[in-house]
């Protein structure tokens, strides 16, 4: 299986990339690590006329901590996240993406722009309350994670915009848990749940829960968060809150998981992720 024909450019500045993107029309696509895009092109599900490769564009790499938040260049690959000592939940989630070879190529910016609800990073960004910086013909703007994911593989990044950086609050002092369920280690998540918990004196002062593959977009499990916030953290309160993990979800079913099974998994995994995040496991 091979892609259809397309033209290719590897601009050396962001301005050039934006110009190429704007000039190329709707079927021009950005190429970052290519590990979401190229498989779809090989299957001829996506048929771009032109690819604009961001590989040579400066300023899209690197990870710095700024004002309690991590700025992560959009071209940062998953393996860099995985092996970073201070990224906590993000690092853990990145370590479960596909396999080592894919993690050497796939990028955080590409993954978020792709907006696949079965991918690991979107729900993490959502739960952490992060954002992305995007640059387009209209200049730079910040898109909050809550506004980023619009529908199945659809984001609010405009066709002529480039994600340049990802901002993830450091959330110092938060415990985290990540529970990904798949049949085989290299598979996409059937369901995954990430949890961030800030506790003081055994009481849950803050909690954020993200759900992967429980709808056409990643979701926050707000019902769980509301049920647990302000409550003492123990097995019973976590179990009670986790019961609400599938509220307001609309999980897509497939051969190996009906919506009912996925709702069940969300509750089980939520309990486990919260338990882990609360340090009770």
């Amino acid at each position, binding site marked *: 299986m091979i892609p259809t024909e397309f033209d*290719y450019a590897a601009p050396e500045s962001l301005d050039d990339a934006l110009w190429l993107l704007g000039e190329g029309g709707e079927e021009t696509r950005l190429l970052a690590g290519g590990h979401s895009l190229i498989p779809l092109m090989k299957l001829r599900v996506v048929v771009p006329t032109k*690819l604009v490769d961001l590989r040579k564009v400066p300023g899209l790499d690197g990870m710095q901590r700024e004002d309690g938040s991590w700025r992560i260049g959009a071209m940062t690959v998953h393996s860099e996240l995985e092996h970073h000592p201070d990224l906590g939940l993000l690092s853990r989630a990145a370590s479960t993406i596909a396999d080592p070879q894919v993690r050497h190529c796939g990028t955080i910016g590409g993954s978020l722009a792709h907006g696949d609800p079965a991918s690991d990073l979107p729900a993490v960004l959502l739960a952490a309350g992060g954002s992305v910086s995007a640059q387009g013909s209209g200049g730079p703007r910040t898109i909050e994670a809550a506004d980023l994911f619009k529908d199945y593989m659809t984001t609010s990044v405009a066709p002529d915009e480039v994600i340049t950086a990802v901002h993830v609050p450091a959330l110092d002092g938060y415990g985290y848990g990540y529970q990904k369920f798949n049949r085989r280690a*290299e598979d996409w998540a059937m369901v995954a749940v990430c949890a961030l918990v800030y506790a003081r004196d055994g009481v849950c002062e803050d909690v954020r829960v993200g759900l992967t593959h429980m709808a056409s977009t990643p979701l926050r499990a707000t019902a769980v968060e509301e049920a647990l916030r302000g409550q003492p953290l123990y097995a019973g309160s976590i179990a009670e809150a986790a019961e609400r993990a599938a509220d307001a979800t609309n999980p897509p079913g497939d051969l190996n998981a009906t919506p009912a099974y996925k709702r069940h998994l969300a509750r089980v995994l939520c309990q486990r992720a919260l338990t882990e995040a609360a340090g009770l496991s």
Partner: protein
Amino acid sequence: MSATVPVRITVNGASHQLDVEPRRLLVHALREELGLTGTHVGCDTSSCGACTIHLDGVAVKSCTVLAVQCDGREVTTIEGLGSTDDLHPMQEAFWEHHGLQCGYCTPGMIMAGVDLLNRTSQPSESEIRHAIEGNLCRCTGYHNIVKAIQAASGQQTEATSQARDEVQA
């Protein structure tokens, strides 16, 4: 055909100038332009890992990389890892521990194994299994592949094969 693009690429230490269609997959450029057929294709979906090579020193699936993305970069294939006269320790270990049967997944599996040891010198069994979770083998059940990678990392493993000179002794 879309306009071809010049690509300068270093493969197994040798520099090459290629003119390729933008859609040319790296694996096909290696196999068909450069005649390096040790890198195989086993699927359409980046699942099987038979095409694993090293790009700038790390393992990637060359069926999911465009040749044009490799301009100015360095590739190592199984042919560059070692030859029959000068085997890489990982190749030696796969032979010694019967880590292959039909051999089709083997180049990719060896390249993934080397990549793991570049990151982790003494991996646990679980680390080895997860490091090759993107490399499918239908023949071996992975048992002897795991042993081979353990052995290549210098860790003690039970003997698998017997040397012929031992037989003669």
